């Protein structure tokens, strides 16, 4: 005889302000409404960008928990700063920039407080046991300057011009860094295949 077990489903409360009437509006129009204090407009922006913002934060920090904190804090900061958004950049670039700054802060904090030695040994043991480095591990091992360009262009899907605006870099620098990042990743994959 089988027993039915009722598992409580995680309750995801949909804020009452979100009613879908803002779905067809452009980012800029939503930004203007959010700047005026409209939470429904801001929520639509959250819905549109949360995955991409989370991806950016996750691939730059390399940590789920840090990425979540970065996106959450970044979105709250964006809501507070909405009245100051001048509209001279694309709204998406502005939000990416806020979250990226949080990601940099998170990396800095981690550098200042290194992980306990035991944990590092445990991670090293797992890696050597599996004896493989996949592409995302190689991406996480890249230097930050190259990693962030590869994440912006290849993972999030920004154009080089957009990535340049996000990172305050000329398109030529973005292009060269992206080329070098891909080359290093290709070397890592070749080493993986050679094993």
């Amino acid at each position, binding site marked *: 005889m089988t027993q039915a077990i009722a598992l409580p489903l995680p309750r995801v409360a949909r804020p009452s302000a979100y009613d879908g009437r803002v779905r067809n509006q452009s980012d800029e129009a939503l930004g203007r409404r959010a700047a005026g204090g409209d*939470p429904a407009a801001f929520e639509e922006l959250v819905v549109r960008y949360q995955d991409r913002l989370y991806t950016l934060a996750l691939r730059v920090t390399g940590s789920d928990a840090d990425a979540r904190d970065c996106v959450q804090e970044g979105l709250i900061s964006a809501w507070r700063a909405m009245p100051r958004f001048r509209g001279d950049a694309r709204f998406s670039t502005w939000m990416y920039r806020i979250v990226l700054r949080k990601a940099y802060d998170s990396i800095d904090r981690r550098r200042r407080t290194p992980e306990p030695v035991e944990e590092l040994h445990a991670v090293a043991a797992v890696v050597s046991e599996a004896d493989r480095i996949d592409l995302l591990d190689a991406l996480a091992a890249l230097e930050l300057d190259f990693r962030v360009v590869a*994440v912006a*262009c290849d993972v999030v899907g920004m154009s080089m011009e957009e990535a340049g605006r996000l990172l305050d870099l000329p398109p030529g620098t973005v292009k060269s860094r992206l080329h070098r990042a891909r080359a290093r990743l290709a070397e890592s994959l070749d080493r993986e295949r050679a094993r």
Partner: protein
Amino acid sequence: MSEPHEEIARRLTELGRAEAPPDLRGEVMAQVAAEPRRRQRRSPGFGALVRPATRIALVASVVLAAGVGIAHLGGGGSTSSPMVSTGSGVIPAAAESSTDKGPAYAPSTPAKSTTGTQLVGSRDARYGASSVQVRGLVIDRVTARSILGRYFGRPDAHGYIVARVPAEDFRSFGFRLAASALRSDSLSVTLDDRQFVRILLVAARDRRH
């Protein structure tokens, strides 16, 4: 883009994307709802424009007042050439020629230095009938020295007082002051023709002749 690079870009796009945690949006919007309600952005009002101007005007008036005060303190020192010393008993002849000049000032309290010495010009038993009531603006250099001691050294017995006396009182005051100075060991008086009276306090052993 070379073939390996294309493959890298394609695989990064496939593998790298992630979905935000499902409860992230709810948490963010709960925090947004908990934020204090914002006011609509407005253009700066009249008050916002006036406030900095008021602040600037206030600072300017303080600086001006300080400048005037310093000019008054320094005024006694710059009038040394026409002065006639009465410390050695010389009657101030220059005083007589200047009684009509200069502005009159409102009566003030008798001058008193911070060192506790009752100065000529106030009613003091030490000087008896010869003491006079100074009516006018009195600038006390001893006080200035005590306030600005950090910059000018500690106040000492060699400080002097500058008094500006109304024109109508200047002549009689000058004669009485000179007479007081003749009988005093610790006082030297100088008058000039701009209704300034400098009363030099001198320690007895350092009395200048």
